[in-house]
Every structure is written in structure tokens, then in C-alpha cells.
């Protein structure tokens, strides 16, 4: 068994698997769709086996505290990354101002086979948001206001955006550049129930000139086309703030041959009922990310580097940097010799040799 482990711990194999991992990393550059995950998984598994065998059998590692910590941490990182991929979840969602988070809003869902978080317990209500723009339409800071449960039956206000995600039950919600407007409409059919809802317009200002969407009311046969003419104060040449509360929008409604421009509060009678333009609202696009290993990964990596630093610190203290004495007697202290070896710098025949393997 020990003999097998020693073979598996070979440094030649370490270098070979490292080279293989390098190839896998190069192939994974920019996440090309045609590169399978095994180009990384196979070398990582081989390196993990090699590392585990070396930790068990190699006294150069397991008898040196700092080095042992570093190598165990490397192994820990591989295990944690693998566990993270099995339990992770990623998705996107668009949520309208004034509405609460619902798992039905999630799109582009990707999750590991062992994912089992408490997403059904996540609650927050989307509030208004602002996005600062610099001259030249360069996006600046996003401030997205949300309300989250305060733990005592009430709601607590929070501001998230850019590098400040909303973290609830381990799920991290990141604002994205994907955001826009959503006119709130009430549909009063000739027969049936009155309904109020929103029409999501395409992202703004990315699709400034394509703020259009279409909808067929329930029980109706005629499709309604919407076009939103916005006044947001946008000025490509100077700094401005995208703020739905300060924006106005004229809703152009087309049904059949009919074309009507609606202001907030106005209605239009169509073939199957009456449509009312209640107000202009907004929506924010979030990226959802869940990985229960994040804090452990960070902790393990830091402990590993600390172990390596302790190992080098001890080595450097035992074998000092070469020092030269002042004056005419130029001497160099050799690294690799614990008590130092003073040798004349110029011309003395010197057989320094290599130090023991560090």
C-alpha cells in the first residue's frame, strides 16, 4: 500500500499533472462552449490523488508544519470547489418595482445536482433604483433600494448595487446592467375580471429606440402593441442619473388599425375592453448566485498561504540572505548554510554546492 502511495506521490507525476492542468486551463480560456469540463476535472483529480499520496508518504511535506498546512489547504480547495459545483445555483431574474421576489421569476437556471438551499424562504421587495451615468454614456454606480424582513415581522430598507450584493439565506443577488421600464396597466374587459399588471419593456438605455412590446389580453383575440416614448433626462454628452421616479413616458398603443397615445391616468377603449395606463414603473435585472463553500474556500486558501509563509519564514531565518560586511574585507554569507559561510568575494576558489532541498 505504502509502495503504491509512494509511486502515486511521484514529483514527476506532479509536474505531469500540473502540465495537464495548464493545458486544461488554456483550453478553458473564456469558457468556450465546445470545451468540456473534464479538461479541468481530470487533471485536478489526478493532482488531488498525487497530493494526498505525497502528504501521507513524503516526509519533506508531512514533517514540516507550514508546508503540510499549505498542501492540505490545496487539497481542501480542490474538494471545496468540487462540492461548490455540486451544490451551487445560478440564475437571472427581472423584478418590477413594488413587487416581491418569487422563484417563478427565475430564468436561465443552472444548479448542481446536490443543490438544496432555502430559496423558498428568501423574501425581499424591490424598491426604486437610480443609475449614475458619466458623459459618453459610461455607466456609474447603481443604487437599488430593497426591503428585506427585519426578523421581527417588519421590513428593513437596504441599498444594494454593483459590488454590494443582497445576501439572503446564502443566496446572493447582484444588480446587473439589465434594467428598464415597465408601464403599469389595468385591463377592464367587456366581460370578465379586471386585472392590473406590467408590460416589461426592453433594457434601457441599451435599447433606447426599441422600447416596444406586445400583449394579448385574456379572452381577447386582438393583440395590442405598445411603444414607450420616454423622457428620462438622458444626455449622452454629460452626466445624468437614470431615475424612474423622475422619468415620464407616453405609451403608444396600437390595436388593429387604431393608434392612441396615452399619458399616465388615461384610458382607451379597444375591441374587447378598456385599457388604463396607471403609471410608469421600472424593473431591475439581478443575477442570483449561491455557493455554500465561499467562506470556507477563502478561509482554506488564506490558511494555506499562511502555512507557506510560515515555512519560508523559518527557512529564511535559518539560512539568511547573503550579507556583505563593510570595509575592504568583502564577505558573503552563503544561503544554504545554517551558520553562514563567510567567503571572500573576489577570486577565492569556492565550492558552494547546493543546499539541502528546501
Amino acid at each position, binding site marked *: 500500500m505504502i509502495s503504491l502511495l509512494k509511486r502515486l506521490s511521484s514529483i514527476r507525476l506532479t509536474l505531469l499533472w500540473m502540465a495537464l492542468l495548464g493545458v486544461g486551463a488554456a483550453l478553458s480560456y473564456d469558457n468556450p462552449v465546445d470545451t468540456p469540463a473534464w479538461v479541468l476535472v481530470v487533471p485536478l483529480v489526478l493532482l488531488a490523488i498525487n497530493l494526498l499520496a505525497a502528504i501521507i508518504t513524503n516526509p519533506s511535506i508531512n514533517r514540516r508544519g507550514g508546508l503540510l498546512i499549505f498542501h492540505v489547504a490545496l487539497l481542501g480547495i480542490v474538494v471545496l470547489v468540487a462540492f461548490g459545483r455540486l451544490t451551487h445555483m445560478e440564475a437571472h431574474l427581472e423584478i418590477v418595482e413594488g413587487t416581491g421576489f418569487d422563484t417563478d421569476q427565475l430564468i436561465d437556471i443552472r444548479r448542481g445536482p446536490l443543490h438544496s438551499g432555502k430559496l423558498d424562504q428568501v423574501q425581499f421587495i424591490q424598491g426604486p433604483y437610480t443609475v449614475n451615468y458619466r458623459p459618453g454614456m*459610461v455607466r456609474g454606480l447603481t443604487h437599488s433600494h430593497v426591503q428585506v424582513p427585519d426578523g421581527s415581522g417588519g421590513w428593513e430598507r437596504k441599498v444594494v448595487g454593483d*459590488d454590494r450584493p443582497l445576501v439572503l439565506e446564502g443566496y446572493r443577488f447582484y444588480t446587473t446592467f439589465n434594467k428598464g421600464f415597465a408601464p403599469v396597466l389595468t385591463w377592464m374587459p367587456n366581460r370578465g375580471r379586471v386585472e392590473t399588471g406590467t408590460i416589461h419593456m426592453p433594457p434601457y438605455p441599451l435599447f433606447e429606440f426599441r422600447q416596444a412590446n406586445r400583449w394579448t389580453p385574456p379572452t381577447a383575440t386582438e393583440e395590442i402593441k405598445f411603444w414607450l416614448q420616454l423622457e428620462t433626462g438622458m444626455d449622452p454628452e454629460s452626466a445624468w442619473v437614470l431615475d424612474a421616479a423622475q422619468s415620464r413616458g407616453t405609451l403608444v398603443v396600437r390595436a388593429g388599425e387604431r393608434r392612441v397615445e396615452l399619458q399616465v391616468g388615461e384610458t382607451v377603449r379597444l375591441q374587447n375592453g378598456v385599457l388604463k395606463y396607471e403609471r410608469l414603473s421600472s424593473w431591475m435585472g439581478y443575477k442570483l448566485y449561491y455557493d455554500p463553500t*465561499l467562506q470556507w474556500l477563502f478561509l482554506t486558501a488564506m490558511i494555506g498561504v499562511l502555512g507557506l509563509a510560515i515555512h519560508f519564514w523559518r527557512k529564511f531565518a535559518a539560512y539568511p540572505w547573503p550579507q556583505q560586511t563593510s570595509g575592504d574585507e568583502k564577505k558573503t554569507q552563503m*544561503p544554504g548554510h545554517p551558520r553562514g559561510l563567510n567567503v571572500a568575494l*573576489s577570486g577565492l576558489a569556492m565550492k558552494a554546492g547546493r543546499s539541502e*532541498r528546501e
Partner: protein
Amino acid sequence: MVAEQPWLYTAMAAYALATVIAIRGIVRARGGAVGAAVNRSYEPLVLGLISAGVILLVMALTERWIRIGHGPFVNLFELLMSQLFSLGLVLSVVYWRLPVIRPAVIVVLPMMWVLGIWVLLLEPTASAFPPTYYNKWLWVHVGVGKFFLAFSLMGSGVAGVILLRKISRLAPLFRHMPPDSVLDHVAWRFMLLALIFESLMLIAGAVWAQDAWGRYWAWDALETSSFLNWLLLGAAIHARLTYRIPIHIGAIAILGIFVFAFMTYFGTPFFSEAAHKGVI
């Protein structure tokens, strides 16, 4: 001419003068009897000029910060200027604390001149600070990354001396330095320090990426390149500690690792519009 340029030009002049005086001093000291005292009177001047260059670059960076409203984190002009500052700072400390390897400065400074000439050819255009760059981990990531590059450069300077000694006409320039076996140890010691700081750079970068873009690793241009650099450095250290690699081969490996790091830092902007393309 914008506010930071006079400081930058003066700093580059200080680095240039340090290079010239160091080369002149080392060339003059190449002769002399074996065991005789070496004239090192030029060394304080070289140290003073490198330190002056560092201080002048601090002024240039401060002027630019005031002018454009953010630190040197975005475009190539400010990244190069910032690297010239941090490389100069680490070089001045190493030059001060490790007198035996001082002649290696004539290898290190010309390497820095690649950056120096490059920055002088660029327009000092203002850059827009991306919203994801307000994160405090950016500072940690960039800060430890600077030490990684600086220690790689120091290792490469010493490795360069080992290789230049193979050229018979240049060997006398470095005859007052320790033998190759000692320089080999020193060069690899710098690379061990580089490994620690590169590991920290990757960790801090991953924390920043998680906060900024909702993922800690995505194999973008810089992430892939810096991971390959870490792997290369780790493999080279394993090989150096396990096998009896000839000293000059080890020196070539160190230079190769530095060139890779250099390409990671400064080559990526050729094919990536921002430090992490597409995610700002």
C-alpha cells in the same frame, strides 16, 4: 501637457540617470586585483536616484488622481506609471538591504525601462472608473500583485546576472558578486516570495470578482493567464527543489516566468479593453 507629465518625465530622468551611473560604476569596478577593495562610491547615488524616481512617481500619481478623480487602476498609461512606482520602491529597498546583489541593478533597470519607454509613448488620457472598482478588495488584489511582479523582477535581475556571466566579455562586470551557486539561491528565494504574493493576488482577486461580478472565477483573459503563471511558478519551484537543474537552466526558467508575468500584466491590454474584459 497634463499635470502628472512633468513629474513622470522627471522620474524617468532619475531612473535613466541611475541606470547610466550604475553601468558606469560597475564598468569602472570590473578591473582591480583579486581580493582588492571595490570602489562602491557610486552606489549611494544610484540608490538616491532610484528613490528620487519613486518619490517623483508618487507626485505624478497624486497629480493624476486629483485630475481624473480616481487611482491608477484602469488604463494602460496609469497602470504602467503605477508599476514603475512599485517596482522602483521594491528595487530601492532591495538595493539598500542587499548590497551583494547591487550590480544586478544594471539588469533590473533596463527591464523597467521597457515600461518607462512604453508609458512615455502613451497619451495620458483620463479613464472612467468602473462601478465595480470601488471595492476594497481591488486595493488588496492590486497591492499584493505589485509585490508579486516586483519580486519576480528582482529574481529575474539576479538570474540575468547568472546568464550574462556566461558571456566572457560581460563576466568581469559581475566578478565582485557572489558565485553563481549563491546567486541561484537568491534568485529562487525571490521567486518563493513571488509565489506567496501571487497566491494572495489570486485569492484577493477571486474575492473581488465574487463581490463585483457574482462569480469568483470565470477563466477570463487575466484570470487564465495569472493562473497559468502561478502553475508555471509552482512547477518550476517543485522542479528546482527536487532535481539538480543546471543553474543557468534555472535562471532561464526564472526569466521565462517573469516574461509570462509581464505578458499577463501588460500583454493582456492588447486583446482586452479593460483589465477584466466584458465584465466591468
